[in-house]
């Protein structure tokens, strides 16, 4: 009888210890996932900020180079695609096409010296360059949080728990080629 009680107590203790371990691990997972989501919200903020700058920029360029209709249409289309995108994957893709359309928009400004000297254009370009740097910074911080997440859920024994709750590795936000080249204002 006494022996049986001891065995029961030991089993109960082991179960409680394991349970506590599982709960704390689970909470850690929740925290990490929240972190990734919070970081992504920051990226979204900056993407939104850039989208907000674009109409002004396009208007200014139009004042000097009204016949470059194709580029304006491309930029507008990419922008509305970005604003319509809901999932991070869609947003990343729409952002890549906005990057290339914007690159072309800024490239045509090279052909118009008067546009390049326009004070409000210079200010807008500064805002755009600053926002692109902000996107790069937030992207880096987001990717770091994804890295932590992905490493954590692949490690033993966390991978068992992650599998149980259906936690999957998350995708990095890759910089699209050419987006690294921040438009420089030079004289």
């Amino acid at each position, binding site marked *: 009888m006494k022996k049986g009680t001891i065995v029961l107590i030991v089993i109960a203790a082991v179960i409680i210890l394991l349970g506590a371990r599982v709960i704390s691990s689970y909470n850690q997972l929740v925290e990490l996932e929240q972190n990734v989501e919070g970081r992504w919200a920051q990226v979204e903020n900056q993407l939104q900020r850039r989208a907000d700058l674009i109409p002004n920029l396009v208007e200014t360029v139009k004042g000097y180079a009204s016949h470059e209709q194709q580029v304006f249409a491309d930029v507008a289309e990419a922008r509305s695609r970005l604003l319509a995108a809901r999932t991070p994957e869609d947003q990343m893709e729409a952002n890549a096409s906005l990057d290339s359309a914007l690159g072309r928009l800024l490239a045509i400004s090279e052909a118009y010296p*008067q546009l390049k*000297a326009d*004070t409000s254009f210079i*200010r807008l*370009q500064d*805002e755009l360059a*600053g*926002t692109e740097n902000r996107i790069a910074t937030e992207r880096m911080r987001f990717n770091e949080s994804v890295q932590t997440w992905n490493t954590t859920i692949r490690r033993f024994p966390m991978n068992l728990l992650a599998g149980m709750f259906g936690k999957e590795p998350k995708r990095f936000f890759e910089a699209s080629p050419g987006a690294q080249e921040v438009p420089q204002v*030079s004289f």
Partner: protein
Amino acid sequence: MEKSRKFLSLGVFLVCAFILTGSAWAAFPKPQGFVNDFANVLDRRSQSELEILAEQLKKDQGIELAVVTVATTEPMDPKEYTTGLFNDWKIGGPEDSGLLLLLAVAERAIEVEPGYGLEGVLPDGLIGAVIDQEGMPHFKEGNYGAGLTAMAKAYASILAGEEFEIAEENKPDFGWLFSFLIFLLIVLLLRRNRFYPPRGSGGIGGGGGSGRRTIFIPGPTIGGPRMPTGRPSGGFGGFGGGRSGGGGAGRRF
């Protein structure tokens, strides 16, 4: 056989570890104060002027201004380095109210980055305009100290709530012409009247100059004698824990 395989994997591990830590080796220097002339390009006067300005900003508004010159930002590009340094030093108080002016000599780059808390008062366009108007003319002549001081003064006055006038590049500026004409008119009038007031007591004059504003910076109003070097006494206690998100503007000169 077994042993050599073990050695091989150990070797691979060590190589990987070495490569991985390599990128983290690009450590930033430690801050020595608000003004950090690592490249040794600032003259004494600019340095002390900048230090006084930074201390004033810190005292009046709790804003931390850091001015840094480096010989090079290799292997990073200047912007990356600026954002990295800002967040490594944690410039700015709890409201992320920091401002970093970084000049890289080899890259011929000037980068200005605001903390999160100053992004509203100092939008990137304004930051860029101050660089163009206050900094670039000096930097192009190699007067790094004068350029950084002029920029710091302009940012300080903006942060104090003053308006910064952006010079319109397309419109020719007739301000000086106007002043000159008035001056001529007065001289002619005085000549005609053959009346010269003693010691020029007229209130007009000094209205010349271009459209540039002279910015008023309240001098150090401390009662005691001013330390010529302006070093904060008792060593530098570090910055207040501010963060930045990579905004701001930069130029190559």
